[in-house]
């Protein structure tokens, strides 16, 4: 059996070799189908990887609760109305009563003018709780993070974002210097590494970090917060935790059903899935293209197989005279069809790997391959080969050897 298959395969390849251009053209449909299937999946995979790298950079398993009402008046616009109803106690209650939650970090952010000597910038000042550096990934470029006692004593200390540092200090060493935040003098203890724009759209290089209590007691004297981060132990519980938080806060804020809530809860996955909509579109287009290509490719193979059977009636007669059964003839032509579709798919995979490498190289995406799509394309081309091969093969086995030989 194995010997007969391998010899038949060698003979099939020799026959296809005599019709090089025809063979190449006939497998193009399958190759293009595979190409679009695998490329689109690879691109999706690369985007996912990029987003997950970004999400990882943002912080692990985070939920962000923000004060305010988000309205969507239409055409995809979002209007944000701030509110002063989110309290530190809300954050504490979330931590104490929701089982998945391992930590919360309340914060207050507000944009202030900032000054050092003659330089002025507008900075997004964020009052952070001591555990902020454990929830969000931050790296210190110069100096250090706040100490426990700086948090406890509401000390007037600040950590600068990289752009703020560059704009205010240039090449000067900022550590130990005082900057003015609005009217409050703050001592610089550290500078953050350049981090770029995070998933929520905040420019992290244009922010300054201040101890949370310093911010709300000494600078602003308010009793509310603008947001808090919630960290969940397990990534898989992110959505449940989000629901629980939502329920809890609706209860605490006495939001009636039908009323708009004065807060909103987003999981890090929501931020990622917003970007995913574009991916889904690309994906659907790619899949449509590949289904079309596969169908056309399959029909192409079918046509080529019909042609080859008609051309090789004499060969079929010779093989029958040499002792081939009808089943042998069916096997032979099925093998040929399978060889065509699978090599078409292999060709497509090869090109898609090259294209993926190019995309990754030029579009600066992290390299990722969708093994699933490669597997699917091979399986698909196998069944396509069976589909395109079975009818011609049956035709071939029905060839009357006597007629074919005389």
């Amino acid at each position: 059996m194995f010997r007969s298959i391998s010899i038949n395969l060698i003979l099939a390849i020799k026959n296809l070799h005599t019709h090089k251009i025809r063979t190449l053209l006939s497998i193009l449909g399958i190759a293009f189908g595979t190409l679009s299937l695998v490329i689109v999946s690879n691109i999706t995979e690369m985007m996912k990887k990029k987003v997950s790298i970004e999400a990882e950079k943002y912080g692990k398993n985070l939920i962000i609760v923000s004060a305010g009402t988000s309205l969507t008046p239409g055409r995809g616009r979002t209007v944000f109305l701030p509110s002063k109803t989110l309290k530190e106690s809300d954050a504490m209650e979330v931590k104490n009563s929701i089982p998945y939650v391992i930590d919360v970090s309340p914060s207050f952010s507000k944009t202030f003018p900032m000054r050092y000597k003659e330089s002025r910038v507008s900075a997004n000042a964020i009052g952070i709780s001591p555990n902020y550096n454990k929830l969000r990934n931050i790296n210190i470029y110069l100096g250090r993070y706040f100490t426990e006692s700086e948090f406890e004593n509401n000390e007037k200390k600040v950590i600068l974002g990289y752009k703020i540092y560059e704009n205010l200090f240039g090449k000067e060493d900022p550590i130990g210097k005082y900057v003015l935040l609005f009217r409050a003098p703050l001592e610089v203890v550290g500078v953050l590494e350049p981090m770029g724009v995070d998933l929520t759209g905040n420019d992290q290089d244009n922010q300054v970090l201040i101890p949370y209590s310093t911010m709300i007691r000494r600078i602003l004297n308010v009793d509310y917060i603008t947001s808090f981060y919630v960290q969940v132990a397990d990534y898989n519980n992110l959505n449940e935790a989000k629901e629980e938080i939502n329920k809890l806060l609706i209860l605490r804020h006495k939001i009636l059903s039908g009323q708009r809530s004065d807060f909103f809860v987003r999981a890090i996955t929501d931020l990622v899935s917003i970007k995913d909509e574009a991916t889904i579109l690309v994906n659907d287009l790619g899949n449509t293209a590949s289904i079309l290509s596969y169908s056309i490719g399959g029909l192409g193979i079918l046509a080529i197989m019909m042609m080859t059977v008609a051309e090789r009636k004499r060969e079929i007669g010779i093989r029958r005279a040499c002792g081939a059964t009808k089943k042998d003839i069916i096997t032979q032509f099925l093998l040929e069809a399978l060889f065509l579709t699978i090599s078409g798919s292999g060709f497509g995979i090869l090109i898609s790997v090259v294209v993926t490498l190019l995309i990754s190289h030029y579009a600066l995406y992290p390299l990722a391959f969708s093994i699933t799509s490669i597997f699917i394309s091979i399986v698909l081309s196998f069944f396509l080969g069976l589909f395109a091969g079975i009818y011609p093969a049956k035709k071939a086995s029905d060839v009357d050897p006597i007629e074919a030989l005389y």
Partner: protein
Amino acid sequence: MENTPIIELKNLKKSFFIGNREIEVLKGIDLKIYKNESIAIIGQSGSGKTTLMNIIGCMDKATSGTYLFKGKDITTFSDDELSEIRNESIGFVFQQFHLIPYINALENVMLPTIYSKKPLDSVKQKAISLLTDLGMKDRLYNKPTQLSGGQQQRVAIARALINDPEIILADEPTGALDTKTSSEIMDILVSLNEKGKTLIIITHEVEVAERCKKNIRISDGKII
């Protein structure tokens, strides 16, 4: 068992339908062929000799009558069983050589081994030695189009021999060859008979028939 014919046909009839008309091509053939005989079946075209050969060669089935192959009634054998007989026991040689054009001489010779159920080893070695014996040592890797008619027929004979069949069934084996090559091919076939093969040749040429020990004439579907 020496007396059991290798092939025995009893009142064999074959008819075809052309439209609604039934045409009887073989009208009751009785024939015994013994091991190691060499027989020429002679007849004009249209006499039914090719149909007879197709039935003897298990390529076609009779409409009625009995076909005993090595004493076994194969009249009602299935397509697969007949294929096995063709593969193991009969080597065909055709007038038009019938080699597969896109593979070389050696591969053509090995073709029947694809379908053999017998365990085989060194098929390639055997094919090479068969072709060498037939004077084709230098043409092993040539495609059929690169060979002369006589050379192609030698390849076809080697192919007929690769599975060690008892019977060589040749249909006008010299029909497409010139006189000199014809006699060379006949020399080969006769020598195979001398080495123990049963030789059945269908022909209308007297020169060919004369080389066989026994001649059978067929005319209008009957042996005369």
